[in-house]
C-alpha cells in the first residue's frame, strides 16, 4: 500500500531532478537566441557559434586548457596505474597509509591546495606557466584516477598474472600481455574523467596560471565578471555536449565506481 506522502515525495524528487536540468536547457536554448540580451527570446540564430569560432582570445584559452588537460590527465593516469600496481605489493598496513595520502587531496579544500602550491612555486622562484598549471591539475586529478584504477586493479584475479609468470612470462611481459589489456577500460575511463576535471578546473588554475597561460574557465570567468553574453551561452552549450560525450566514453559502470564507491550492482 502506498501512502499519499510517498506520492508527494516522489513528485518532489521529480521536481528536484527537473531543477537540475532547467538551467542547462536554458543555456542551450538561449545560445540560439537572436538577441544581444541573452535572456529575452528574439528568434533563432546560429551566429553566436560563428562569433565563438572567431574569438581568438577564447580559442587561445581553449588551446591552453586542452594542453593542460591532456598532459595532466596522462600524468595522473600513469601515476595512478603505477601506484595501483605498487600498492598491491605492499602489506595491508602500508597500503592503508599510502592510500590515505593518495586520497588526502579529496578532503582538503581545493583552494588551500592551490594556495599551498603557490607557496612552493614562490619559494622555488619558479615562473608560473604551463608546467605549474599541469602540476596543479595533477594534484587535483590524481585521486580520481587512483580511485578508478585501484578499484579495477583490486578486482583483477591475482592468479591471472601468476599464471602468466608460471607459463614463462617475465614481470614485464605479464604486465604488458595480461594486466594492461584487462585494465584498458578503466584506464580510459580514468583518463577521460581526469581530462574533464582538469578542463573545467578554475580554483587550482587561479593560483597556478601565469601570463599567457589563461585557461578557458579563467577566461570565461573574467568575461562573466563583466557580463553574460550570448557567445558564452554558445560556449556553454558546447561544453554540455562535451560532458555527454565524456560520460558515454567513461561508461556508467566506472561512473558508479567513482561516485558510489565499490562495484555492487543495485539489487
Amino acid at each position, binding site marked *: 500500500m502506498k*501512502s499519499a506522502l510517498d506520492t508527494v515525495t516522489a513528485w518532489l524528487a521529480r521536481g*528536484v531532478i527537473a531543477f*537540475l536540468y532547467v*538551467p542547462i536547457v536554458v543555456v542551450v536554448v538561449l545560445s540560439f537566441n537572436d538577441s544581444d540580451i541573452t*535572456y529575452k527570446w528574439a528568434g533563432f540564430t546560429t551566429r553566436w557559434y560563428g562569433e565563438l569560432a572567431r574569438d581568438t582570445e577564447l580559442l587561445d584559452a581553449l588551446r591552453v586548457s586542452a594542453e593542460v588537460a591532456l598532459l595532466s590527465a596522462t600524468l595522473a593516469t600513469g601515476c*595512478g596505474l603505477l601506484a595501483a600496481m605498487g600498492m598491491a605489493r*605492499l602489506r595491508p598496513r602500508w597500503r592503508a597509509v599510502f592510500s590515505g595520502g593518495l586520497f588526502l587531496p579529496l578532503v582538503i579544500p*581545493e583552494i588551500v591546495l592551490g594556495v599551498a602550491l603557490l607557496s612552493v612555486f614562490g619559494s622555488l622562484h619558479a615562473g608560473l606557466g604551463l608546467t605549474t598549471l599541469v602540476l596543479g591539475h595533477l594534484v587535483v586529478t590524481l585521486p580520481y584516477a587512483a580511485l578508478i584504477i585501484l578499484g579495477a586493479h583490486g578486482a583483477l584475479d591475482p592468479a591471472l598474472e601468476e599464471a602468466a609468470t608460471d607459463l614463462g612470462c617475465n614481470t614485464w611481459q605479464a604486465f604488458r600481455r595480461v594486466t594492461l589489456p584487462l585494465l584498458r577500460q578503466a584506464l580510459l575511463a580514468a583518463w577521460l574523467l581526469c581530462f574533464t576535471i582538469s578542463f573545467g578546473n578554475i580554483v587550482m588554475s587561479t593560483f597556478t596560471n601565469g601570463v599567457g597561460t589563461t585557461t578557458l574557465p579563467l577566461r570565461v570567468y573574467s568575461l562573466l565578471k563583466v557580463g553574460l553574453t550570448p557567445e558564452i551561452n554558445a560556449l556553454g552549450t558546447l561544453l554540455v555536449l562535451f560532458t555527454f560525450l565524456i560520460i558515454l566514453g567513461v561508461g556508467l559502470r566506472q561512473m558508479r565506481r567513482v561516485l558510489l564507491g565499490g562495484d555492487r550492482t*543495485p539489487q
Partner: protein
Amino acid sequence: MTAPPPAGAGARRGFLTAALLAPAGLTVAGLVLVPLLLVVRDSFATPDLYGGTKGGFTLANYRSLFDPVYLKVFGYSLGMAALNAAVCLLLGYVVAYYLVSRAPQRQMLLLLLIIVPFWTDFLVRTFAWINLLSPGGPVNSLTDAVGLTHGPAQWIPSQGASFVGLVYAFLPTAVFPVYASLRGVDPALGEAARDLGCGWWRVHTKVLLPIARPGLLAAALLTFIPTLGVFVIPVLLGGGKNQLVGNLIVTLYTEFRNQPMGAAASVVLLVLMLVSLAVFGTAARRLRRKTA
C-alpha cells in the same frame, strides 16, 4: 592475497615496489604535504612589499583576521555552508529514496540523469543562473504570468541567487552517498515496517534514516567543507558583497598581495576542515557502535 616472496628476491622486489609507488608518492609529498607545511610556515611570516614573505615569526596575521570584517566572513561562510549542507541533505535524501524505490532498470536511468549535471562544467552551471534570474528572464516571465511579480525583478546579484547557485552546484554531490547507503536495503524492510503498523513518518525516521545515516554523514561532509572554499558563485551570483572564506583567500592573495595573511586564512580553513572531519568522524563511530 599473494604469497610472501622468496627471501633472495626481497631486495629487487622492494626496489620495484618503491619505483612503482614513487611517481604518485612524490606527487603527494612534493605537491601536497610539503606545500601545506609551507602554508603553515607562511602564515606566521611577515609580508614583504612584493606579495611574498620576509620570513620571521609573528602572530600578527592571525590577529588581523580577528578584525570584525573578517570574522563576519567566517561566520557567514559557516552559516551558508551549514544551510547549503542541510538543504542538499534533505533534497538528496528525497531523491535517493525516490531512486531506490524504482525498478533497477529505471534506477540506472535516473542515476545517469543525476550524473550528467554533476559532470557538467561548473562555470556553465553557475552562469546558467544569470540567464534564469535576470530581470525579464525566464523565471521572471513565469512569476509575472502567475502574478507573483509585476514587471522586472532585481534578483541577481543577491544572497538568494548565490545560495540557489550553491545548492545547485552541490546537490548531485549529496545524492550519490545517500543513494549508495540506501540501495543495499531490501524494499521488503520498509513494507514490513508498514505492515507492522508504522506510519510513513516512522518508516523513514525509525527504519530508513538510520540506514542512510553513513551516507548522510558523507554527503554532509562533501557539501559543507567545499562550500567554505567556493569563490566563483558569490562573485558571479552574489555580486561579491557577501563573501565566503574562499573569496577572502583569493582577495588576500591576488588583490591585497598579502601572502602571509592569505596563508593564515587558509590555515583557519584547514582547521575548520579538521574540526568538521573530527565531528563527523566521531558521529560515524558512535553510529557504528550503536548499530554493532
